[in-house]
């Protein structure tokens, strides 16, 4: 029996008693802190901590061509870098499946919520638009990257200015952003479902479920991951929990 199966056993036994390794209740979120404007060179930035997990999102904007099928809209590109700074398990090099899934889920939440008014980022239809790059660096990995990255991306967008001055196009003005999504992630292990997993819980998780809700409590994006399964009732219950939590988290984000 190796260390990892001892740890698993320990978490399983705790779970049977409805307990989590850090003493939280199954539907209890860790403290969230958000600091905006931490990177001077970025158009916008935010450092977000959920417990000991810390991520930094930065926004950069550049001029580019619109996509052929959306000539009147700016473009959005989201990337997450699991830099080896944050965990001994992250490797340098091109993004791997985990980083790609993470970035795409964050991107979908923001895109489907209409968070950025992309029409306002069109300069010359079919020719020239603003491209918004959201780059997220994981600095300290202690579980639940999906929610931390989603929050950091939203907070950085709320902080961002369109860099008209750098492109000699007049004065900077705020990026048109509204109603970012609130993402809530759950993992399941040995039959228990917990919100906002810690690192240890991420490590033993059999299934993961993320749902992004808007300010009306409507659903904008979801993603089930890992090889475990959920029942329909478990999904419904998780959505309900997420809708309960979202207003509190939204207040921290927008406050």
């Amino acid at each position, binding site marked *: 029996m190796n260390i990892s199966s001892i740890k698993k056993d320990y978490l399983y036994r705790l779970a049977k008693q409805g307990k989590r390794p850090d003493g939280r209740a199954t539907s209890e979120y860790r403290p969230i802190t958000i600091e905006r404007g931490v990177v001077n060179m970025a158009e916008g930035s935010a450092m977000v901590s959920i417990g000991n997990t810390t991520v930094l999102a930065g926004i950069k904007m550049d001029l580019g061509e619109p996509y052929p099928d959306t000539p009147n809209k700016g473009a959005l590109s989201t990337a997450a870098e699991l830099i080896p700074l944050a965990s001994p398990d992250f490797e340098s090099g091109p993004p791997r499946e985990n980083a790609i899934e993470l970035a795409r889920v964050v991107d979908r939440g923001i895109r489907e919520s209409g968070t950025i008014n992309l029409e306002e980022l069109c300069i010359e239809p079919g020719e020239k638009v603003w491209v918004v790059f959201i780059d997220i660096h994981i600095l300290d990995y202690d579980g639940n990257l999906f929610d931390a990255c989603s929050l950091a991306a939203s907070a950085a967008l709320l902080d961002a200015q369109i860099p008209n001055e750098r492109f000699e196009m007049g004065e900077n003005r705020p990026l048109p952003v509204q109603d970012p999504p609130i993402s809530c992630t759950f993992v399941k292990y040995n039959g228990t479902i917990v919100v906002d997993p810690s690192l240890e819980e991420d490590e033993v998780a059999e299934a993961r479920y993320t749902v992004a809700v808007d300010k009306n409590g409507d659903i904008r994006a979801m993603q*089930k991951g890992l090889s475990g*399964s*959920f029942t329909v009732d478990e999904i419904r219950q998780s959505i309900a929990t997420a809708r309960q939590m979202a207003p509190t988290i939204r207040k921290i984000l927008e406050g």
Partner: protein
Amino acid sequence: MELIKDGKRLDGRKPDELRPIKIEAGPLHRADGSCYLEWGGNKIIAAVYGPKEAIPRHIQNPTRAVINAKYNMASFSVGDRKRPGPDRRSREISKITSEALENVILTEMFPRAMIDVNIEVLDADAGTRCAGITAAAVALADAGIPMEDIPVACAAGKVGDTVVLDLMGEEDQEGQADVPLAIAPRTENILLLQMDGHLTVEEFDRALELAMNGCQQIATMQREALMKKYQSFEED
């Protein structure tokens, strides 16, 4: 574009109706198991190789087999030519497909092994990830890989303010939400679930119900396709 008119969709379907589906088990000679699937305008081929020794060694798991699904779109399967090779979208789909299939495969029977599942989209018309999982499941069964159940996938969504089953191309592009779902049909456990768009909780419940229903219909077609192949063997 008016996606729903007089309760009918662009291609004449009712909201809860699937597109025509054709499943053939075992069309390929070289693969250990294979499946050809037509689903609306989608044409998908899936092939399975394994279990075999996992290479390179560092990917081996000492307690179970590794499932290595690769979803790939042919460059000519879409409107504008797709550059060959995996992009971010296909890498995400490969990952969640691998995870969904791993759920039902009795992987602990084959420690240190790998099972390759190759999914090729030859012609694309929305819903290719669900079609790919459905075809891969038949190919796995055709290869004799032991599974708890034969997974099946189907999407629901929302177009023209109506929750509908199984979006086709125009509905996917112009629609308001898409909810791909994969399940193990016996238990109805959810193996894959994604959503993007805008749904109220009630609409999501309805979409999930429709997709669950669609899955069960397709599961029957999967079993028929496998039966047909085994019968043709017996007839020989």
